[in-house]
């Protein structure tokens, strides 16, 4: 029997996530105990953590698109070979990235700390992915549901903004600090927007499939929200760098566009009760449960992110753990919840096996523990950020004394991190077992 390639994407994704979170935990203890686990010092743990969890995000999103497109979107993949090549490039690049970190060979750019030559296979893999995707979907003559637009947008913009994030190799960009930082955070901001397109597209796809109702994915409102999201992807990134002295209008545009997110927030709150009641009817479906959780996290994080985009608040919060709270809230609370939902939908769908009662119970307990602990983790980051900001502005304590003051919160982060990893193990054990049985079956 031919094995479904997406299952390998998911398997490597889970491996990347669990090891990424483990290394994140080690890194957080290195904050509390200097010299902790010096086999992999902090300078290597941080990039390992970031790259592994980003790998998780991409592997599940990409694996999902490769599976959902032919199975549920009435098209056949332009090429069945390209996904295999894509997976191989991904894994070989991943191994090279990890090796370069362990050897201490860095490119030293935030988020992408590996040497820039490794950007070449990354770019190549996105070209292959895009080629296959567009060749496939352009054969589809009827109107696309919004998620097909979102996946297309995610792929297109990721490719260009990732290339942009490597422009620093040219002296014109690199040597001029203000330009360098501005372009770096322009691209980083849009890159995150691009993967969000892939992930939110997946969430809408899943709800559409589970409810077998494509009216939402084709509705006018869905498209208005999509275009608003894309506008933010293109223009709102300046909130990362309000204090960088580039042209003042860069800041005003970033601020103004960021505030349009209030419309998204307003829509969420307006429909909250109705949407939630509807979703709760399907709460017993495991994938739906994770999507409902991601909705709650969207509400919390969007509120935080809009607040952080107001310069008068940003001036206090920039460079503190409040930014990290936002980053963790969105990558774990929103992205990972949706991606887990995708795994829990895709794996039984491929293997044609359902979770038994015990497995479902396991996943369900993991779900509650993960979300509960994540909430404390998130609040601890917010408090750490608040106190750091306060103490930095007071300007009385030295850097080390400030770090000492916020240490208890970092402790909460480290310990809840362990719990979150445990909960993830509970959630992933049943699906991984399912994949194992599927792969060894002839």
């Amino acid at each position: 029997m031919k094995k479904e390639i997406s299952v390998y994407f998911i398997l490597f994704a889970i491996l990347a996530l669990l090891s990424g979170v483990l290394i994140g935990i080690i890194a957080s203890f290195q904050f509390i105990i200097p010299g902790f686990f010096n086999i992999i010092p902090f300078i290597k743990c941080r990039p390992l953590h970031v790259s592994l969890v980003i790998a998780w995000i991409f592997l599940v999103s990409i694996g999902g698109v490769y599976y959902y497109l032919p199975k549920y979107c009435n098209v056949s993949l332009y090429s069945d070979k390209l996904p295999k090549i894509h997976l191989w490039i991904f894994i070989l690049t991943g191994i090279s990235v990890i090796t370069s970190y362990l050897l201490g060979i860095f490119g030293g750019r935030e988020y992408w700390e590996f040497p820039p030559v490794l950007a070449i296979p990354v770019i190549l893999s996105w070209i292959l992915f895009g080629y296959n995707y567009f060749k496939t979907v352009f054969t589809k003559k009827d109107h696309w549901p919004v998620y097909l637009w979102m996946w297309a947008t995610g792929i297109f913009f990721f490719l260009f903004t990732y290339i942009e994030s490597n422009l620093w190799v040219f002296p014109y960009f690199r040597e001029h600090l203000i330009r360098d930082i501005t372009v770096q955070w322009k691209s980083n901001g849009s890159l995150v927007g691009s993967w969000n397109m892939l992930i939110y597209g997946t969430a809408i796809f899943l709800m559409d499939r589970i409810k077998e109702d494509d009216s939402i994915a084709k509705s006018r409102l869905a498209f208005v929200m999509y275009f608003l999201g894309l506008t933010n992807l293109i223009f709102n990134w300046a909130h990362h760098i309000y204090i960088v002295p580039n042209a003042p209008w860069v800041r005003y545009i970033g601020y103004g566009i960021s505030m349009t997110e209030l419309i998204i927030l307003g829509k969420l709150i307006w429909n909250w009760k109705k949407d939630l009641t509807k979703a709760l009817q399907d709460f017993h479906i495991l994938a739906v449960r994770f999507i409902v959780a991601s909705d709650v996290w969207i509400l919390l994080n969007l509120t935080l992110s809009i607040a952080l985009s107001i310069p008068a608040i940003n001036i206090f919060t920039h460079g503190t753990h409040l930014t990290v709270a936002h980053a963790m809230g969105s990558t774990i609370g929103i992205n990972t919840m949706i991606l887990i939902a995708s795994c829990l939908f895709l794996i039984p769908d491929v293997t044609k096996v359902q979770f038994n009662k015990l497995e479902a119970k396991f996943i369900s307990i993991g779900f509650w523990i993960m979300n509960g602990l994540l909430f404390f983790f998130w609040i601890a980051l917010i408090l750490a950020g608040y106190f750091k900001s306060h103490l930095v502005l007071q300007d009385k304590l030295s850097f080390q004394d400030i770090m000492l003051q916020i240490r208890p919160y970092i402790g909460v982060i480290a310990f809840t991190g362990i719990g979150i990893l445990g909960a993830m193990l509970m959630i992933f054990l049943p699906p991984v077992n399912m994949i194992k049985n599927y792969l060894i079956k002839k």
Partner: protein
Amino acid sequence: MKLNTKRFIISILIASFFIYSVVIYTVGTRVDKGEKWITEQSRQGKLLFQKKNCIACHQIYGLGGFMGPDLTNVISALGKGPDFAKVILSNGTERMPNYHLSENEIDAFIAFFTYTDKTGISPVKDFNINYNGTVNWKDKNEKGN
């Protein structure tokens, strides 16, 4: 929403992405108050800062890791300055690894931080908040130091 409307909006957005990018690469980032302090050494220092991945622990303009302090203005900060930075760079501390840097490398870092210091301020501690949520602060050079 009609297909043609969608096509129209997406074309406008994609075009504005590329146009805005070029605008940012040029006029949006033309001014750099530290430009005069860009030297061969500061360029080397910047590359070295990346190669050694100092950003894992440090920030420039508040961006980077949180294990160490923001280094944008370490050269002009009260009680710090080039000599202080040199000592830390040559010896490391309990939390910062000793990189066994050469004399040249240390000088390159100092040249780089001298440049970053002239470009602006981070963190901004002295500012005014306006009614519309924007913020103003005085540039160092305007304050006269």
